[in-house]
């Protein structure tokens, strides 16, 4: 199965996105802690895209696809027609750096990398695709 959800690039839409991911994952026989982690990771991806690729322009949109057919695990894809950023090459600052610099940002990508098994980025003429793979732990 393939589930798609499209939202405008507003931070206020992150709650809707989390609800969509949660509903899809609730159809699957995977551990509760993993559902929570996946909802979090996708929230982080979409927040980054909405803020950094679209500067929260509510006239723009992003599309999230969740593919559940692969017996090895789940595939999540976020399609972005904004500026884009190469998520697989982005350097994650150390916790010490963040504390020292009193920065509030910088933890999201660290969370995504800790939760997802694979993180891919593709750029085409008209859009950017962020693709994530997660091997599932069944209940």
């Amino acid at each position, binding site marked *: 199965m393939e589930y798609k959800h499209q939202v405008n690039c507003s931070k206020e839409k992150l*709650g809707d996105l989390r609800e969509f991911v949660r509903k899809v994952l609730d159809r699957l026989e995977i551990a509760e802690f993993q559902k929570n982690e996946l909802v979090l990771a996708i929230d*982080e991806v979409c927040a980054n895209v909405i803020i950094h690729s679209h500067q929260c322009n509510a006239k723009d949109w992003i599309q999230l696809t969740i593919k559940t057919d692969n017996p090895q695990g789940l595939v999540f894809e976020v399609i972005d027609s904004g500026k884009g950023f190469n998520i697989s090459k982005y350097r994650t600052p150390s916790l010490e750096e963040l504390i*020292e610099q009193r920065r*509030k940002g910088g933890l999201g990508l660290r969370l995504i990398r800790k939760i997802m098994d694979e993180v891919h980025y593709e750029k085409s003429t008209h859009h950017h695709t962020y693709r994530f793979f997660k091997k599932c732990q069944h209940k």
Partner: protein
Amino acid sequence: MVDITDYTEDEILILEVKGEIDASSSLSLDQAIADALKKNYRNVLVDLSKLDYISSAGLGVFMSYIQEFKQKQIYFALFGLSEKVSNVFQILGLDQLIPVFPTLEQAKNQVHGV
């Protein structure tokens, strides 16, 4: 949406956080902690027992104040985290950087050196 209220108990300032903290609501947490710092309490505890969700935006707010609390010699701790919220702190190791207690009583014992 997040709702933050504060009260004092045994000369400790306690912030009670309810709801969800994500990139759209983390500014409220940021403001609440900034306001708490201005009140000049020696001890600030944050009650997260009614927090249903936290993303990196909320974790980042807590992290950004670690230095300031340290410099001002204010004791800062969290308590009452659900398993789900606690897991997010653990994934990043933030539970090692900010004291976390199961209950208010245990957090207060730490403050009072019991």
